[in-house]
């Protein structure tokens, strides 16, 4: 028998593939209401970036204004953050990514920030297919200004005060698909498994990812008569497919049934595995995706899952045929045109 004393090794903290701990992806303490759907989304984002092993310093978090838009403070403190103005995050993010295309970006918006004041910028962002993740934390109301209806509130839904919404909802997913986003889906802040898989796939995709995440506002829109409450979602969530994700550093050979499951290889080699729950489901077909959404509206169902994914379309930076070196980090000698170019330009004005 050995008599060497054994000093127990302290348990090694778990790390991801770049050696960082989950702590390295955490943000500040939330100041949102306890139970707000937005908080759950922040947690899922934290986990997804940790699991995918993204270097936090390479990420720009962007947002507009609203409770939702405050969320970037509550995840990934080691990333760069820009709280812009109400409804203008799409343009700020576009400018920033064009100036430095080597950065990654995740934008957090609200249904007010996107579907009302920011609608113009939103649709134009979708058209660009800018490589970024755009999340709408959708609660059907303006949380920060104390609960007025937003443009994603369903017709007939009721405010706490009893006011009935008399206008139809804007379906941001349908818009995003039509406008050219290349990864579009809807989820629910309370659906941990689905949201996590969708976020990880979003990180693996290169192009605009638009996720509308139903995120109940416990303070202003979680009552009877609301169609964005926890209770309503539990009763009406209708996944079009079960979303599975196999990252490029996991074993891709996991078996799946080719008849019932759509496999999409994403840009980084990861795979999105979508097991059909709906007969007409085909996430590579724009028209079918739109159809499903329209039918769901008619049936008063809240469809969730990945509706559309297109890995063929070039993203904005590829489309613009940009030089490899980011404009933002050109050396001082390189920021202005060369002598030869200037001479050519001056000759035009002779």
């Amino acid at each position, binding site marked *: 028998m050995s008599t060497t004393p054994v000093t127990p090794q302290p348990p090694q903290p778990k790390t991801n593939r770049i050696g960082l701990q989950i702590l390295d992806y955490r943000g500040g303490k939330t100041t949102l209401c306890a139970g707000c759907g937005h908080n759950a989304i922040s947690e899922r984002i934290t986990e997804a970036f940790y699991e995918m092993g993204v270097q936090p310093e390479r990420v720009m978090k962007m947002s507009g204004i609203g409770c939702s838009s405050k969320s970037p403070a509550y995840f990934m403190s080691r990333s760069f*953050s820009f*709280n812009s103005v109400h409804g203008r995050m799409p343009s700020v993010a576009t400018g920033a990514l*064009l100036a*430095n295309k080597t950065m990654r970006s995740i934008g957090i918006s609200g249904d007010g920030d996107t579907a009302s004041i920011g609608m113009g910028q939103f649709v134009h962002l979708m058209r660009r297919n800018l490589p970024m993740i755009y999340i709408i934390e959708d609660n059907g109301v303006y949380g920060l200004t104390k609960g007025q209806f937003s443009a994603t509130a369903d017709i007939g839904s009721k405010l706490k005060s009893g006011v009935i919404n008399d206008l139809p909802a804007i379906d941001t997913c349908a818009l995003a698909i039509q406008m050219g986003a290349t990864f579009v889906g809807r989820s629910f802040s309370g659906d941990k498994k689905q949201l996590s898989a969708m976020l990880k796939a979003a990180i693996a995709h290169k192009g605009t990812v638009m996720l509308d995440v139903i995120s109940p506002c416990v303070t202003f829109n979680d009552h009877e008569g609301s169609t964005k409450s926890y209770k309503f979602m539990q009763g009406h969530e209708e996944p079009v497919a079960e979303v599975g994700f196999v990252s490029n550093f996991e074993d891709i050979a996991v078996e799946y049934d080719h008849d019932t499951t759509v496999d999409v290889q994403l840009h980084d080699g990861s795979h999105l595995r979508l097991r059909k729950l709906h007969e007409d489901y085909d996430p590579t077909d724009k028209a079918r995706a739109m159809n499903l959404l329209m039918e769901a509206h008619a049936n008063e169902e809240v469809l969730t899952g990945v509706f559309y994914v297109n890995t063929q379309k070039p993203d904005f930076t590829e489309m613009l045929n940009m030089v490899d070196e980011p404009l933002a980090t050109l050396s001082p000698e390189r920021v*202005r045109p060369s002598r030869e*170019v200037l001479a050519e330009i001056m000759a035009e004005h002779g």
Partner: protein
Amino acid sequence: MSQSFAVGIGGAAGQGVATPGDIFAKIFSRRGLHLNAYNAYQSIIRGGHTFLTVRTGPQKISNTGDHLDLLIPLNQDTMDRHLRLLTAGGACLYNADLIQPGAPAAGVQLCPMPVSNMADITRNKVGQNTLAIGAALSMMGVGFPALESVLVEQFRKKEQAVIDENVSLARAGYDYATQNFKPFAWALPMTEARYAVLSGNAAMAMGGAAAGVKFYSAYPMSPATGVLHWMAAHARKAEIMVRQVEDEIGVVTMAIGAAHAGVRAMCATSGGGFALMSEGMGLSAQAEIPIVVIDCQRAGPSTGVPTKTEQGDLWQMLGAGFGDYPKVIAAPLDIADCFKLIPEIFNITDRFQCPGIVLCDLLLSEGRLSVDPKELDFAPVIDRGEMITSNGSGDHEPYKRYKITESGVSPRAIPGLPGYTHVVSSDEHDEDGVLISDEYTNAGKRRAMMEKRMRKVDGIAASVPPPELYGPANADVTLIGWGSTYGVIEEACELLREAGISANYLIVRWLVPLHGDAIVDMLRDARHTIIVENNFSGQFARYLRSETSFVPDGNIRKYDGEPFAPHHIVEAVKEQLAGKTKLSVPVHEIMV
């Protein structure tokens, strides 16, 4: 008064006024002459009335002047409206088949050209223009080869037959005039100098390229569109990311996003577009991200007069956005200055991390001026201010993006730099970007941040020179202007001196910061002060008064859409010195 020669060409939009204008401009600049050109037009693509004036001479030409030496009316309308601009010694060249001459002033030569006898222009709609150019150059004493080479260049993208046809038309016009018309008494001189001919819009765009601008965004709006066109045409060559955005709100916020990532970003618009950019001005100031916005003023309010000039946006610029914040506003004095101002203002906005506004106007944006290339410094100093671009040893204090400093400037790090992650926000924040209204609003922090930002105002003022007073001391009258009226005020002062009234002038280029004390010092002993500006309410006069309590003896204002001509100012000064009025609003004699 130095010698000059002014040509006016007018016709309906689509009749080809621009090409003869370009040809004259090229010929003048290749003879080593200066020139100044202005095109009066309307916001329609066909029809309407376009009138282009090109004035040339061996010395600097600061404006298009009061009269014409040569008029080329391409239609009857132009003959009827503009013949009166010709003075003794001048001439009017016109197609006698189509146009009835009017009654010119004494000493004006009418030069009818029997166009249908001279050439078959049934296929070439603008043939009459080429005939007239040929005739005009013969009368100016310019040899034909100069014209031939410019024509070959002008039509180089067309087939040889087109070039040959135009050269032979020009030749026919040239020979006809040599035989039938009296040459001008003053043959165009030639000098060794060589000038570039630039519009203000091209000059601002080139100034941006020289300043190292890497991102330009815009939404088309007259008269700022020329900057976008220049940028788009040179984007590849100059490696500038140029984006046409969905509206001006997106234009300015996209520029802010790019600047946040680390590049110099610029955008241009006119008053209506700028109105949409107001929220971006506040964002730039609060987030402390420098950008430069060019506002090419046109007559307002609202859609206003899209193709006419005004200096009516000053108060919009002063009040853009809400809350108090540091900013810089400068008005270029002429087209060469449009170039020079851009690198200067970028250095200030970068050093002080605030928005900068270039307050240009249609007169400069769309006007053209000969500029000595030596005046254009393509390698101006680029001062990015306190910017952290590398993490060096990696050892440093925890980074605070909005660190409270004596100068009010907090060193800026760009996204992607490890060890310098930070939060940028439009909400009021503390030193590390955390929103102060999130828990309880800390009055002390708010005050400290406000004072930090506003301390930059002193630094900005120290980096910008006060204006200067030009001309003799103890003058009978001192004219005060800002921005684009510089050229016309300068000439008006010369004309006043010729008329026995001594005049000096003070032109303001930096509007914010203003250096009000220095201005008041300069004006203290002035005998009679008059503020000249292109707007209704005397926007600059009101601003100067609000900053300094200074009230001038009189004002000259014009708000009819057209720029001042020198005689407008001269006559107004005379009536004011005679005690007839304190406010003159010169009438624009000709409708264009």
